[in-house]
């Protein structure tokens, strides 16, 4: 599928109780379903519908997307860092394919 690469920005370290900003970007056309190809045939909709972020296994943030979100969806959000651990990111498109990324954050 076209969900092949994603970029995430997560600080490597944070103080306990610090709120950090997390930025994510995934390569995806977010094809609206309103366009036609050069033969006049409708191009089917193909969008990421769901984004989920977890922190040590617990869902902390998610988003439900439509074709109104720009291509290569950018999502940024905050996270309250309480302990060292793993943050996971999962994108799911309307064809059922998913892409996942992980990041580690260490409390100093």
């Amino acid at each position, binding site marked *: 599928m076209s969900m092949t690469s994603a970029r995430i920005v997560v600080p490597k370290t944070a103080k306990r109780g610090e709120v950090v900003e997390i930025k994510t970007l995934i390569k995806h056309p977010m094809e609206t379903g309103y*366009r036609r190809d050069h033969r006049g045939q409708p191009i089917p909709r193909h969008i990421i519908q769901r984004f989920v972020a977890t922190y040590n296994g617990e869902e902390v943030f998610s*988003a439900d*997307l*439509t074709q109104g*979100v720009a291509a290569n969806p950018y*999502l940024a959000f905050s996270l309250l860092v309480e302990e060292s651990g793993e943050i996971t990111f999962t994108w799911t498109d309307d064809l059922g394919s998913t892409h996942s990324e992980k990041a580690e954050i260490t409390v100093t």
Partner: protein
Amino acid sequence: MSRPEGEGLTRRQVAAGVAAITLVPLAPGSRAAVAGDQISTALEKITGGVPVTDGRVKLEISSLAENGFSVPLTVSVDSPMTADDHVKAIHILSEKNPVAEVVKFNLSPRMGRAKVSTSIRMADTQRVLAVAEMSDGSFWSDEAHVIVTLSACIDGG
């Protein structure tokens, strides 16, 4: 200069928006009300009729977008983000896009701060509304008016 992809998409979105407006049977001269109705309908579905108060939400979006293909926005909500008092969701609603609710963010107290960002498509110059759904069941909002220009369309070169 040409931007074939962005230009084509935006034109179709504009066309779809215009078609949607003209299909709604309403008294002549009430176009503004009709155009705004897409937001009202979406709001009704989200709130179930609970009143939405202006405030506590800050929607940051450019008032002038050169190209509606990708318009960055940031929403922050005044909330302590504790287990007892936090933002549950933020909805971004558009007045003239083919789909009224552009994106829904689901928040949790583990975020520490109610602040999210993304980039959206805009079919036309229009109002954008950010609605925050609180853990106490109340709704708060902020709105912006964004002028979308398509300078590439009038470029004769």
